[in-house]
């Protein structure tokens, strides 16, 4: 019997090694897998490369992981915010490497990894600092920049409901990066509010099919 549901957050993240590349879901705090972040902080893996739209908000989730000095490099589109103080401090102290990527290019690089695309041309950032040193090409009178996929060892995402085959649904705009990150990592770990029996998620409403998910861990109270 396939059972991707793991009994605890600790068990879900136990094998994450130092130096791993980790996709972390969420846009700001919506969809941020904060309970998995806490488990990763307790687990202690260091020298991580993390991919998220932001670089942590306030003191929880990714911000707490940065404060715990477990992150070596961040790939993101929008690090500087009014409440990104942990990132700002570590960045200014030279403890963190930043790779800044336009938001749509970030999403497409993740999607490309999940879809087996070798690289792609996008018009975004052509003629700007963020395209410096990159290969460009003119296609049908438009200029494009070559971008490469972002593959990862792990994806830590937050979904709403999940079953033992790993099928997932999300809630409102907390969906954001979850589905594409799930497809782009070797091991996707989803924290869910609720676990349900097979068939309880309408197949027409499955957002992330279980093939993309390795582990599901429930954070809400037992049903």
């Amino acid at each position, binding site marked *: 019997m396939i059972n991707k549901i793991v009994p605890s957050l600790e068990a879900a993240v136990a094998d994450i090694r130092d130096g791993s590349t980790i996709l972390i879901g969420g846009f700001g705090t919506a969809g941020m897998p904060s309970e998995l972040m806490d488990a990763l902080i307790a687990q202690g893996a260091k020298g991580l490369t993390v991919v998220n739209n932001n670089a942590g908000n306030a003191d929880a989730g990714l911000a707490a992981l940065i404060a715990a000095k477990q992150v070596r490099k961040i790939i993101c589109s929008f690090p500087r915010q009014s409440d990104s103080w942990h990132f700002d401090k570590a960045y200014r102290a030279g403890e963190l490497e930043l790779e800044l990527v336009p938001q749509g290019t970030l999403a497409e690089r993740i999607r490309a990894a999940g879809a087996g695309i070798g690289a792609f041309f996008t018009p975004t950032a052509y003629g700007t600092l963020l395209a410096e040193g990159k290969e460009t090409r003119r296609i049908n009178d438009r200029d494009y920049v070559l971008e490469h996929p972002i593959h990862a060892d792990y994806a830590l995402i937050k979904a709403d409901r999940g079953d033992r085959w790993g099928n997932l649904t999300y809630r409102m705009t907390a969906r*954001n990066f979850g589905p594409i990150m799930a497809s782009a990592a070797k091991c996707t770990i989803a924290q869910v509010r609720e676990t349900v029996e097979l068939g309880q998620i309408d197949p027409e409403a499955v957002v992330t099919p279980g093939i993309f998910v390795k582990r599901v861990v429930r954070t809400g109270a037992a049903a």
Partner: protein
Amino acid sequence: MKKMDRNQMAARVARDIPEGAYVNLGIGLPTLVANHIPPGREVLLHSENGVLGIGPKPAPGKEDADLINAGKEPVTLLPGGSYFHHADSFAMIRGQHLDFCVLGAFQVSVSGDIANWHTGAPDAIPAVGGAMDLAMGARNVLVMMEHLTKSGESKLVERCTYPLTGARCVSRVYTDLAVIDIRPDGLHVVDMVEGLDLAELQRLTGVPLKRQ
């Protein structure tokens, strides 16, 4: 001459957004445009984080932390609205499905270049978000900004001195003094605030203007 305030600027932009348009409003000043779409005119507002059909601000106490816009402010969803993941959201932007985006800017050049993401200061932490995608992807890129910097310099310039967000992409600029179209043959003044004439606007702006 009386400069337009932020809400008057937003109302002026809203006048130009037609029924049925798909629109992305940038963070900050452009967000105000939503408050000035006339009742009964169906305009679909998109936000980068994965929502189409944004409704009014939630009533106090009715906010949901899972329902936010790109500025991370709580929003509501209209009946008929939808949620989608980030790659789909940016396919809408980069695939040229949005009719309009409205962006703020530090500078816009006579050739339609926009600079709005980075001051280039050595100690600044840069952040870009979806600005470069919107600048390249939306069918019409509208800019909303004050006409002059705090020290009185024109934000419409011959060539941007700040790092570019996108090249040759802005079609119209709404300032607190005027509405100006950017065309291959130069800048055309569409309208001006009351009490301002072309000579005075030209003096303040520095780059050549034509009266439409």
